[in-house]
């Protein structure tokens, strides 16, 4: 889709309008909804980072939540156990996730597709089980609570603004990366790794860098989570949470940039709304998921895009 000047201006205006509305939210929304919005932004950022590897890189990122959890634990541990400057703690925590992604990726990118996913799953579970059991350091299954967050960003509206700024910047960075030559080649690898290799692309190195990028932004999301919730716990890196993020990508559309954000918004608000009426909200999620797989395998945005713009995308490669 070649964006001519007009439509680019339109998109820019639309984006700014959304941003301004979001920025005004804490002024007129009840505190709970501000909190919910922050949660949606964080979850959406997380799902988008997952989609960098999944939808754009074609990697079976089965256990992305590990990087989320490691980001959250790193910042919590640094804030609780060290006297490092607070800004430094916030800044370095995502790098912990990135380093883990580098190590795990180094082992995993030797394999592809399902094998990659399974290997990532096992390595991720190892991290999870260590965190889960190491009471003296990570608080075990209780997790870490009452993380000392500076008051400026720990209030409901403060944490919302912090989340808003950080996630918009992160999304912007990911957008730039995906539209760079790196991103373009990444999508080529997704479509056809063998062919990419024969045009001179070092596929594994490319995938490894993608892992690090995806892990980094997942770490950012983890840090934001701690800012909003003030705690970190092992469920943040549980496998089922990873699957939930996958569902968000699928729901919104994993070949689109904003799809995962939309998916996160739908699922987080649904959980909150349905959760009021019934404790069986996961069944609702499951039914949505099944309907999606049967009827909308390209997700909401993917479907709309296919409907309006590209009626000619072949689905041959899905087989």
């Amino acid at each position, binding site marked *: 889709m070649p964006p001519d000047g007009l439509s680019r201006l339109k998109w820019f205006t639309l984006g700014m309008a959304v941003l301004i509305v979001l920025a005004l939210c804490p002024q007129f929304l009840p505190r709970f909804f501000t909190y919910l919005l922050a949660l949606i932004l964080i979850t959406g950022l997380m799902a988008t980072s997952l989609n960098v590897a999944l939808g754009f890189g074609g990697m*079976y990122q*089965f256990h992305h939540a590990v990087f989320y959890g490691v980001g959250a634990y790193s910042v919590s541990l640094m804030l609780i156990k060290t006297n490092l400057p607070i800004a430094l703690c916030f800044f370095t925590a995502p790098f912990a996730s990135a380093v883990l992604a580098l190590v795990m990726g180094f*082992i995993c990118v*030797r*394999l592809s*597709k*399902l*094998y990659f*996913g*399974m*290997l990532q*799953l*096992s*390595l991720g*579970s*190892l991290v999870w*089980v*260590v965190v*889960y*059991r*190491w*009471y003296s350091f990570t608080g075990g299954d209780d997790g870490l609570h009452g993380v000392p967050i500076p008051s400026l960003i720990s209030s409901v509206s403060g944490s919302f603004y912090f989340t808003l700024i950080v996630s918009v910047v992160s999304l912007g960075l990911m957008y730039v990366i995906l539209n760079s030559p790196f991103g373009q080649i990444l999508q080529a690898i997704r479509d056809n790794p063998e062919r990419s290799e024969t045009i001179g692309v070092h596929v594994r190195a490319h995938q490894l860098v993608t892992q690090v990028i995806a892990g980094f932004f997942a770490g950012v999301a983890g840090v934001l989570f701690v800012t909003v919730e003030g705690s970190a716990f092992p469920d943040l890196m549980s*496998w*089922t949470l990873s*699957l939930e993020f*996958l*569902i968000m990508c*699928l729901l919104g559309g994993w070949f689109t940039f904003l799809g995962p954000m939309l998916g996160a918004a739908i699922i987080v608000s649904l959980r909150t709304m349905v959760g009021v009426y019934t*404790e*069986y909200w*996961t*069944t609702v*999620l*499951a*039914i949505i*998921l*099944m309907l999606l*797989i*049967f009827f909308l*395998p390209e997700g909401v945005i993917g479907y709309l895009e296919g409907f309006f713009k590209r009626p000619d995308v072949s689905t041959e490669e*899905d*087989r």
Partner: protein
Amino acid sequence: MDFSTTITFNGLIQQFIVGLSRTTILFIVSSGLSLVLGVLRIPNVAHGSLYMLGAFLCYSVATLFGNSPIGFWFAILLAPIGVAIISLATERGLFCHLYDREHLMLLLFTFALMLIFHDAVKLIWGSEYRSLTPPVIFQGSLPILGMPFPKYNLFLLSIGPIVAVGLWFLTQRTKIGKIARAAAVDRDMVGAVGINVSWVFASVFVIGCFLAGLGGALVAPTQNITQGMDHTIIMEAFLIVIIGGLGNVWGALLGALIFGLTDSMGIMILPQFSIVFPYAAVVIVLIFRPKGLLRATW
């Protein structure tokens, strides 16, 4: 805390036997998972839920018979059959339309099933845990080499080989097993020679799920039957299948041995971190053999 870390020979043997009986359960469950993964290529996340369902069904049937010995045997038999019937319904109703989808889609689809099963169990049995006592013949322990061994664990130990031989017979000696093996390698080819692959797949799926139910039923008297059972077992079963080699039933046996034994031996070395040992073992195996120890079927 004052636990003594003196490792005696007797203790070691005892832990070994405990580990082996745990291995049996792991093997039964993961061989079913491996079968489904190898032939149908479905990474069935709901496998753990079927295990949990097997355990709860076993509890209910046994309670129905007032915990009599006959009731126990009925429960062990009926629970996996019940699970098999449920799985047949899901296969015919849902899965058979999805075989040509990507693995990722299948994975997410079975995740949806897992969520539904989870809520269904919560709805039917409530959220408290249940427990089941084994019948009188299996209570107490039996002295072997001068050491007492829980009888029920010995019973479990005897089931493992039966299942292994049964699976070997099924895959190597029966027609359906041969077709299933051929289909695992080249599905289109098998379809092309005029065999109804659809029903072969259904049978394999049902057998795999039956094993999950059996594992659940067998484990019921040894531990609390809880809502969280599905999560733990599915993770472990997946890891076992991966280190064994996807779709390889003997790999599942080997993987279960590694997993079960490192777990029970780990308790003797570092009790708090015992659960870390099997996970670490898995990672070490995979670093050196990323596709598993034995040859994957695909």
